[in-house]
Protein backbone atom coordinates (compact mmCIF):
# COMPACT_ATOMS: atom_id res chain seq x y z
CA UNK A 1 0.00 0.00 0.00
CA UNK A 2 1.27 3.45 -0.72
CA UNK A 3 0.27 6.90 0.48
CA UNK A 4 -2.53 7.27 -2.05
CA UNK A 5 -4.11 3.98 -1.00
CA UNK A 6 -4.02 5.05 2.63
CA UNK A 7 -5.58 8.39 1.81
CA UNK A 8 -8.21 6.74 -0.36
CA UNK A 9 -9.09 4.26 2.40
CA UNK A 10 -9.41 7.11 4.89
CA UNK A 11 -11.67 9.27 2.79
CA UNK A 12 -13.90 6.47 1.53
CA UNK A 13 -14.68 5.25 5.06
CA UNK A 14 -17.99 6.93 5.79
CA UNK A 15 -17.33 6.74 9.55
CA UNK A 16 -14.83 9.54 9.05
CA UNK A 17 -17.50 11.90 7.80
CA UNK A 18 -19.87 11.97 10.77
CA UNK A 19 -19.99 12.73 14.44
CA UNK A 20 -17.68 14.27 16.94
CA UNK A 21 -14.48 13.02 15.32
CA UNK A 22 -15.80 13.50 11.79
CA UNK A 23 -13.99 15.50 9.13
CA UNK A 24 -16.51 18.41 9.09
CA UNK A 25 -16.20 18.93 12.85
CA UNK A 26 -12.38 18.70 12.89
CA UNK A 27 -12.07 20.95 9.85
CA UNK A 28 -14.41 23.46 11.49
CA UNK A 29 -12.32 23.46 14.66
CA UNK A 30 -9.13 23.96 12.70
CA UNK A 31 -10.60 26.87 10.75
CA UNK A 32 -11.96 28.37 13.95
CA UNK A 33 -8.53 28.26 15.66
CA UNK A 34 -6.92 29.74 12.57
CA UNK A 35 -9.36 32.61 12.14
CA UNK A 36 -9.30 33.47 15.83
CA UNK A 37 -5.50 33.50 16.05
CA UNK A 38 -5.16 35.39 12.77
CA UNK A 39 -7.74 37.93 13.91
CA UNK A 40 -6.00 38.58 17.22
CA UNK A 41 -2.56 38.70 15.59
CA UNK A 42 -3.78 41.10 12.90
CA UNK A 43 -5.42 43.31 15.53
CA UNK A 44 -2.02 43.61 17.20
CA UNK A 45 0.33 43.53 14.22
CA UNK A 46 -1.46 45.66 11.62
CA UNK A 47 -1.94 48.91 13.57
CA UNK A 48 1.55 48.81 15.04
CA UNK A 49 3.09 47.95 11.67
CA UNK A 50 1.14 50.68 9.89
CA UNK A 51 1.98 53.34 12.45
CA UNK A 52 5.68 52.52 12.71
CA UNK A 53 5.85 52.27 8.94
CA UNK A 54 4.00 55.56 8.45
CA UNK A 55 6.25 57.42 10.85
CA UNK A 56 9.34 55.48 9.72
CA UNK A 57 10.43 54.73 13.27
CA UNK A 58 11.24 51.60 15.21
CA UNK A 59 12.56 49.47 12.35
CA UNK A 60 15.37 48.02 14.44
CA UNK A 61 13.10 47.18 17.34
CA UNK A 62 10.78 45.40 14.92
CA UNK A 63 13.66 43.43 13.42
CA UNK A 64 14.53 42.34 16.96
CA UNK A 65 10.92 41.32 17.64
CA UNK A 66 10.85 39.38 14.38
CA UNK A 67 14.02 37.49 15.22
CA UNK A 68 12.98 36.65 18.75
CA UNK A 69 9.48 35.67 17.60
CA UNK A 70 10.99 33.22 15.18
CA UNK A 71 13.46 31.92 17.74
CA UNK A 72 10.70 30.89 20.16
CA UNK A 73 9.84 27.23 19.48
CA UNK A 74 6.07 27.34 19.00
CA UNK A 75 5.57 23.67 19.74
CA UNK A 76 7.47 23.90 23.01
CA UNK A 77 5.62 27.09 23.88
CA UNK A 78 2.32 25.30 23.34
CA UNK A 79 3.28 22.46 25.69
CA UNK A 80 4.55 24.98 28.24
CA UNK A 81 1.32 27.01 28.10
CA UNK A 82 -0.63 23.77 28.45
CA UNK A 83 1.10 22.78 31.67
CA UNK A 84 0.88 26.33 33.02
CA UNK A 85 -2.73 27.11 32.06
CA UNK A 86 -4.32 23.70 31.62
CA UNK A 87 -7.14 23.03 29.18
CA UNK A 88 -8.71 26.02 27.53
CA UNK A 89 -8.43 28.28 24.54
CA UNK A 90 -5.53 30.33 25.93
CA UNK A 91 -2.78 27.67 25.72
CA UNK A 92 -3.49 27.28 22.00
CA UNK A 93 -4.08 30.92 21.21
CA UNK A 94 -1.03 32.38 22.94
CA UNK A 95 1.58 30.42 20.93
CA UNK A 96 -0.37 30.87 17.70
CA UNK A 97 -0.60 34.63 18.19
CA UNK A 98 3.04 34.90 19.28
CA UNK A 99 3.91 33.04 16.10
CA UNK A 100 1.71 35.12 13.81
CA UNK A 101 2.38 38.66 15.04
CA UNK A 102 6.03 39.00 13.85
CA UNK A 103 5.42 38.26 10.15
CA UNK A 104 2.40 40.60 10.07
CA UNK A 105 4.18 43.34 11.99
CA UNK A 106 7.48 43.21 10.12
CA UNK A 107 6.01 42.85 6.65
CA UNK A 108 3.50 45.64 7.20
CA UNK A 109 6.24 47.91 8.47
CA UNK A 110 8.53 47.05 5.57
CA UNK A 111 5.70 47.45 3.06
CA UNK A 112 5.06 50.97 4.32
CA UNK A 113 8.71 51.93 4.36
CA UNK A 114 9.51 50.65 0.90
CA UNK A 115 6.79 52.81 -0.70
CA UNK A 116 7.72 55.24 -3.40
CA UNK A 117 7.82 58.59 -1.53
CA UNK A 118 6.67 60.60 -4.56
CA UNK A 119 2.94 59.73 -4.46
CA UNK A 120 2.93 60.16 -0.69
CA UNK A 121 4.40 63.65 -1.04
CA UNK A 122 1.94 64.38 -3.83
CA UNK A 123 -0.93 63.37 -1.56
CA UNK A 124 0.33 65.73 1.15
CA UNK A 125 0.74 68.43 -1.49
CA UNK A 126 -2.89 67.93 -2.47
CA UNK A 127 -3.79 68.81 1.10
CA UNK A 128 -4.60 65.36 2.45
CA UNK A 129 -4.38 64.95 6.21
CA UNK A 130 -2.20 62.29 7.77
CA UNK A 131 -5.08 59.82 8.14
CA UNK A 132 -6.07 60.35 4.51
CA UNK A 133 -2.49 59.88 3.35
CA UNK A 134 -2.31 56.67 5.35
CA UNK A 135 -5.60 55.10 4.29
CA UNK A 136 -6.08 56.43 0.78
CA UNK A 137 -2.52 56.34 -0.54
CA UNK A 138 -0.11 54.34 1.60
CA UNK A 139 -2.29 51.37 2.59
CA UNK A 140 -3.67 50.68 -0.91
CA UNK A 141 -0.18 50.86 -2.39
CA UNK A 142 1.37 48.70 0.31
CA UNK A 143 -1.51 46.21 0.25
CA UNK A 144 0.16 43.41 -1.79
CA UNK A 145 3.03 43.11 0.70
CA UNK A 146 0.75 43.53 3.71
CA UNK A 147 -1.41 40.69 2.40
CA UNK A 148 1.66 38.50 1.90
CA UNK A 149 2.54 39.04 5.57
CA UNK A 150 -0.98 38.04 6.60
CA UNK A 151 -0.78 35.05 4.29
CA UNK A 152 2.42 33.70 5.77
CA UNK A 153 1.01 34.24 9.26
CA UNK A 154 -2.12 32.29 8.30
CA UNK A 155 -0.06 29.46 6.80
CA UNK A 156 2.05 29.18 9.93
CA UNK A 157 -1.05 29.18 12.12
CA UNK A 158 -2.66 26.38 10.10
CA UNK A 159 0.57 24.41 10.39
CA UNK A 160 1.05 24.96 14.11
CA UNK A 161 -2.62 24.49 15.06
CA UNK A 162 -2.11 20.92 13.84
CA UNK A 163 0.34 20.37 16.64
CA UNK A 164 -2.22 21.55 19.23
CA UNK A 165 -3.71 18.07 18.97
CA UNK A 166 -0.73 16.77 20.96
CA UNK A 167 -1.87 18.75 24.01
CA UNK A 168 -5.39 17.39 23.63
CA UNK A 169 -7.01 20.01 21.42
CA UNK A 170 -9.20 19.45 18.39
CA UNK A 171 -8.57 20.32 14.79
CA UNK A 172 -7.20 18.21 11.99
CA UNK A 173 -4.05 17.37 13.93
CA UNK A 174 -6.21 14.99 16.02
CA UNK A 175 -6.16 12.48 13.15
CA UNK A 176 -2.36 12.61 12.88
CA UNK A 177 -1.62 12.44 16.60
CA UNK A 178 -4.31 9.83 17.36
CA UNK A 179 -3.39 7.86 14.29
CA UNK A 180 0.26 7.75 15.34
CA UNK A 181 -0.69 6.51 18.83
CA UNK A 182 -3.13 3.94 17.46
CA UNK A 183 -0.68 2.88 14.73
CA UNK A 184 -3.48 3.64 12.28
CA UNK A 185 -1.47 4.93 9.35
CA UNK A 186 -4.61 5.39 7.26
CA UNK A 187 -5.81 7.99 9.74
CA UNK A 188 -2.38 9.66 9.87
CA UNK A 189 -2.20 10.05 6.10
CA UNK A 190 -5.81 11.20 5.91
CA UNK A 191 -5.10 13.89 8.50
CA UNK A 192 -1.91 14.97 6.75
CA UNK A 193 -3.76 15.24 3.44
CA UNK A 194 -6.47 17.37 5.02
CA UNK A 195 -3.98 19.71 6.71
CA UNK A 196 -1.95 20.13 3.54
CA UNK A 197 -5.16 20.73 1.61
CA UNK A 198 -6.25 23.38 4.10
CA UNK A 199 -2.86 25.09 3.82
CA UNK A 200 -3.07 25.20 0.03
CA UNK A 201 -6.67 26.43 0.28
CA UNK A 202 -5.41 29.23 2.53
CA UNK A 203 -2.92 30.21 -0.17
CA UNK A 204 -5.73 30.29 -2.72
CA UNK A 205 -7.97 32.39 -0.47
CA UNK A 206 -5.23 34.98 -0.10
CA UNK A 207 -4.52 34.89 -3.79
CA UNK A 208 -8.21 35.58 -4.47
CA UNK A 209 -8.35 38.34 -1.86
CA UNK A 210 -5.29 39.95 -3.43
CA UNK A 211 -6.94 39.81 -6.86
CA UNK A 212 -10.07 41.47 -5.54
CA UNK A 213 -8.66 43.98 -3.08
CA UNK A 214 -5.50 45.24 -4.71
CA UNK A 215 -6.03 48.16 -7.04
CA UNK A 216 -5.19 47.35 -10.62
CA UNK A 217 -2.72 50.19 -10.84
CA UNK A 218 -0.71 48.74 -7.98
CA UNK A 219 -0.79 45.10 -9.00
CA UNK A 220 2.69 43.90 -9.71
CA UNK A 221 3.51 41.19 -12.20
CA UNK A 222 3.91 37.76 -10.61
Amino acid at each position, binding site marked *: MNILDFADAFFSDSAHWHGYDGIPVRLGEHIQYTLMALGIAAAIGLPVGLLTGHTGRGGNVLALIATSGRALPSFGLM*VLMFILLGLGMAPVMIPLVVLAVPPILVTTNEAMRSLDPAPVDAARGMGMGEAQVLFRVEVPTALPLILSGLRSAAIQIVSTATIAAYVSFGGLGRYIVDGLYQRDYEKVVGGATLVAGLAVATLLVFWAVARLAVSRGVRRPG
Partner: protein
Amino acid sequence: MNDVFDMPSYLEHSFLGLVGLHLREALVPVLAGLVLALPLAQLCVRFRWLYPPVLWVTTVLYAIPSLAFFVVLIDYTGLSELTVMIPLAVYSLVVLVPAIVDGVRSVPQETLAAATAMGLGPVRRYLQVQLPIAAPAILAGLRVAAVSSISLVSVGMLIGNEGALGNMLDAGLKYNQPRLVWLSVISTAVLAILVDALLIVLRMWVTPWMPRGGGRGARTVLAKGAAR
Protein backbone atom coordinates in the same frame (compact mmCIF):
# COMPACT_ATOMS: atom_id res chain seq x y z
CA MET B 1 15.60 17.22 44.01
CA ASN B 2 16.80 16.74 40.51
CA ASP B 3 19.61 18.58 38.97
CA VAL B 4 18.40 20.99 36.30
CA PHE B 5 20.12 19.17 33.46
CA ASP B 6 19.38 15.58 34.48
CA MET B 7 17.64 13.61 31.76
CA PRO B 8 15.33 10.60 32.01
CA SER B 9 17.30 7.64 30.73
CA TYR B 10 14.84 6.74 27.96
CA LEU B 11 15.84 9.86 26.07
CA GLU B 12 19.17 8.06 25.58
CA HIS B 13 21.14 11.30 25.64
CA SER B 14 22.61 13.71 28.15
CA PHE B 15 21.49 17.32 27.89
CA LEU B 16 24.55 18.22 25.83
CA GLY B 17 23.97 15.15 23.70
CA LEU B 18 20.48 16.41 22.92
CA VAL B 19 21.88 19.85 22.07
CA GLY B 20 24.33 18.25 19.62
CA LEU B 21 21.61 16.09 18.12
CA HIS B 22 19.34 19.11 17.80
CA LEU B 23 22.01 21.13 16.02
CA ARG B 24 22.69 18.28 13.64
CA GLU B 25 19.03 17.64 12.86
CA ALA B 26 18.44 21.35 12.28
CA LEU B 27 21.57 22.53 10.49
CA VAL B 28 22.48 19.63 8.20
CA PRO B 29 19.18 20.20 6.33
CA VAL B 30 19.94 23.92 6.06
CA LEU B 31 23.32 23.10 4.48
CA ALA B 32 21.69 20.57 2.18
CA GLY B 33 19.11 23.20 1.25
CA LEU B 34 21.87 25.69 0.48
CA VAL B 35 23.76 23.20 -1.69
CA LEU B 36 20.60 22.53 -3.69
CA ALA B 37 19.45 26.15 -3.74
CA LEU B 38 22.62 27.60 -5.28
CA PRO B 39 22.37 25.80 -8.65
CA LEU B 40 18.57 26.08 -8.71
CA ALA B 41 18.76 29.82 -8.09
CA GLN B 42 21.41 30.15 -10.77
CA LEU B 43 19.11 28.41 -13.23
CA CYS B 44 16.34 30.84 -12.27
CA VAL B 45 18.66 33.80 -12.86
CA ARG B 46 19.77 32.40 -16.21
CA PHE B 47 16.34 31.43 -17.48
CA ARG B 48 13.97 34.12 -16.29
CA TRP B 49 10.84 32.22 -17.33
CA LEU B 50 11.77 29.51 -14.83
CA TYR B 51 11.51 31.75 -11.78
CA PRO B 52 7.72 32.31 -11.49
CA PRO B 53 6.81 28.58 -11.66
CA VAL B 54 9.65 27.73 -9.25
CA LEU B 55 8.34 30.42 -6.90
CA TRP B 56 4.84 28.94 -7.10
CA VAL B 57 6.00 25.42 -6.36
CA THR B 58 8.15 26.54 -3.45
CA THR B 59 5.33 28.64 -1.97
CA VAL B 60 3.03 25.63 -2.02
CA LEU B 61 5.73 23.33 -0.59
CA TYR B 62 6.40 25.81 2.20
CA ALA B 63 2.71 25.89 3.05
CA ILE B 64 2.64 22.16 3.80
CA PRO B 65 2.67 21.82 7.58
CA SER B 66 5.75 20.14 9.02
CA LEU B 67 3.82 17.44 10.86
CA ALA B 68 1.96 16.45 7.69
CA PHE B 69 5.25 16.37 5.80
CA PHE B 70 6.88 14.20 8.48
CA VAL B 71 4.12 11.62 8.66
CA VAL B 72 3.83 11.22 4.92
CA LEU B 73 7.56 10.49 4.76
CA ILE B 74 7.29 7.81 7.47
CA ASP B 75 6.15 5.41 4.78
CA TYR B 76 9.45 5.85 2.94
CA THR B 77 12.09 6.64 5.52
CA GLY B 78 10.58 5.14 8.68
CA LEU B 79 10.72 6.69 12.13
CA SER B 80 14.17 8.13 11.69
CA GLU B 81 16.11 11.37 11.77
CA LEU B 82 15.95 11.47 7.99
CA THR B 83 12.17 11.82 8.17
CA VAL B 84 12.64 15.05 10.10
CA MET B 85 15.57 16.29 8.08
CA ILE B 86 14.11 15.98 4.58
CA PRO B 87 11.20 18.42 5.17
CA LEU B 88 13.54 20.84 6.93
CA ALA B 89 15.87 20.72 3.92
CA VAL B 90 12.91 21.47 1.64
CA TYR B 91 11.82 24.43 3.80
CA SER B 92 15.39 25.77 3.77
CA LEU B 93 15.56 25.41 0.02
CA VAL B 94 12.30 27.32 -0.30
CA VAL B 95 13.60 30.21 1.82
CA LEU B 96 17.01 30.29 0.16
CA VAL B 97 16.13 30.19 -3.54
CA PRO B 98 14.36 33.60 -3.61
CA ALA B 99 17.01 35.10 -1.31
CA ILE B 100 19.80 33.98 -3.65
CA VAL B 101 17.94 34.95 -6.82
CA ASP B 102 17.20 38.44 -5.46
CA GLY B 103 20.79 38.76 -4.24
CA VAL B 104 22.38 37.69 -7.50
CA ARG B 105 19.98 39.80 -9.56
CA SER B 106 20.80 42.87 -7.47
CA VAL B 107 24.35 42.92 -8.82
CA PRO B 108 24.51 46.04 -11.02
CA GLN B 109 24.96 45.57 -14.74
CA GLU B 110 28.06 47.84 -14.74
CA THR B 111 29.73 45.62 -12.17
CA LEU B 112 29.16 42.57 -14.32
CA ALA B 113 30.41 44.41 -17.40
CA ALA B 114 33.51 45.50 -15.48
CA ALA B 115 34.17 41.92 -14.40
CA THR B 116 33.82 40.72 -17.98
CA ALA B 117 36.11 43.49 -19.19
CA MET B 118 38.69 42.37 -16.66
CA GLY B 119 38.66 39.01 -18.38
CA LEU B 120 36.66 36.97 -15.88
CA GLY B 121 34.86 33.98 -17.37
CA PRO B 122 31.30 33.14 -16.31
CA VAL B 123 32.42 30.77 -13.51
CA ARG B 124 34.93 33.14 -11.94
CA ARG B 125 32.53 36.03 -12.40
CA TYR B 126 29.92 34.04 -10.49
CA LEU B 127 32.27 32.97 -7.70
CA GLN B 128 34.28 36.18 -7.31
CA VAL B 129 31.75 38.90 -8.10
CA GLN B 130 28.13 37.76 -7.99
CA LEU B 131 28.25 35.50 -4.94
CA PRO B 132 30.15 37.95 -2.70
CA ILE B 133 27.82 40.80 -3.62
CA ALA B 134 24.83 38.53 -3.01
CA ALA B 135 26.31 37.30 0.28
CA PRO B 136 24.30 39.59 2.60
CA ALA B 137 21.03 38.49 1.00
CA ILE B 138 22.06 34.83 1.09
CA LEU B 139 23.10 35.07 4.73
CA ALA B 140 19.85 36.81 5.63
CA GLY B 141 18.06 33.87 4.02
CA LEU B 142 20.28 31.44 5.94
CA ARG B 143 19.34 33.16 9.19
CA VAL B 144 15.63 32.69 8.53
CA ALA B 145 16.15 29.08 7.43
CA ALA B 146 18.41 28.12 10.36
CA VAL B 147 16.27 29.70 13.05
CA SER B 148 12.99 28.20 11.85
CA SER B 149 14.69 24.86 11.31
CA ILE B 150 15.88 24.83 14.93
CA SER B 151 12.36 25.60 16.08
CA LEU B 152 10.78 22.92 13.88
CA VAL B 153 13.05 20.03 14.89
CA SER B 154 11.08 19.81 18.16
CA VAL B 155 7.99 18.75 16.23
CA GLY B 156 9.89 15.59 15.30
CA MET B 157 9.14 14.41 18.84
CA LEU B 158 5.65 13.49 17.66
CA ILE B 159 6.93 10.86 15.23
CA GLY B 160 8.66 8.64 17.77
CA ASN B 161 11.04 10.87 19.70
CA GLU B 162 13.00 12.27 16.78
CA GLY B 163 12.79 15.83 18.09
CA ALA B 164 16.11 16.10 19.99
CA LEU B 165 15.49 18.87 22.56
CA GLY B 166 11.79 18.56 21.75
CA ASN B 167 11.80 15.05 23.21
CA MET B 168 12.03 16.68 26.63
CA LEU B 169 8.53 18.08 26.10
CA ASP B 170 7.03 14.61 25.96
CA ALA B 171 9.12 13.41 28.89
CA GLY B 172 8.09 16.49 30.87
CA LEU B 173 4.39 15.82 30.29
CA LYS B 174 4.64 12.09 30.88
CA TYR B 175 6.50 12.30 34.16
CA ASN B 176 4.94 15.56 35.30
CA GLN B 177 8.27 17.39 35.20
CA PRO B 178 7.64 21.01 34.17
CA ARG B 179 11.39 21.53 34.54
CA LEU B 180 11.99 19.48 31.38
CA VAL B 181 9.44 21.51 29.40
CA TRP B 182 10.99 24.79 30.51
CA LEU B 183 14.44 23.45 29.75
CA SER B 184 13.35 22.39 26.27
CA VAL B 185 11.76 25.73 25.38
CA ILE B 186 14.55 27.87 26.80
CA SER B 187 17.42 25.83 25.39
CA THR B 188 15.83 25.67 21.93
CA ALA B 189 15.29 29.44 21.92
CA VAL B 190 18.84 30.11 23.15
CA LEU B 191 20.22 27.78 20.49
CA ALA B 192 18.29 29.63 17.80
CA ILE B 193 19.48 33.02 19.02
CA LEU B 194 23.11 31.83 19.20
CA VAL B 195 23.07 30.41 15.68
CA ASP B 196 21.42 33.60 14.44
CA ALA B 197 24.11 35.70 16.12
CA LEU B 198 26.81 33.47 14.64
CA LEU B 199 25.42 34.03 11.15
CA ILE B 200 25.39 37.79 11.74
CA VAL B 201 29.07 37.60 12.71
CA LEU B 202 29.72 35.49 9.63
CA ARG B 203 28.08 38.13 7.47
CA MET B 204 30.26 40.88 8.92
CA TRP B 205 33.28 38.67 8.34
CA VAL B 206 32.57 37.82 4.69
CA THR B 207 31.37 41.31 3.75
CA PRO B 208 33.84 43.66 5.43
CA TRP B 209 32.81 46.45 3.04
CA MET B 210 29.25 46.58 4.36
CA PRO B 211 28.21 48.98 7.13
CA ARG B 212 27.83 47.12 10.41
CA GLY B 213 24.46 46.23 11.84
CA GLY B 214 22.28 44.79 9.12
CA GLY B 215 21.67 47.58 6.72
CA ARG B 216 18.54 48.04 4.71
CA GLY B 217 19.15 45.25 2.20
CA ALA B 218 19.39 42.59 4.85
CA ARG B 219 16.28 43.90 6.55
CA THR B 220 14.30 43.75 3.34
CA VAL B 221 15.26 40.13 2.87
CA LEU B 222 14.37 39.40 6.49
CA ALA B 223 10.97 40.99 5.98
CA LYS B 224 10.49 38.97 2.85
CA GLY B 225 11.64 35.88 4.71
CA ALA B 226 9.10 36.63 7.40
CA ALA B 227 6.51 36.98 4.68
CA ARG B 228 7.12 33.51 3.39
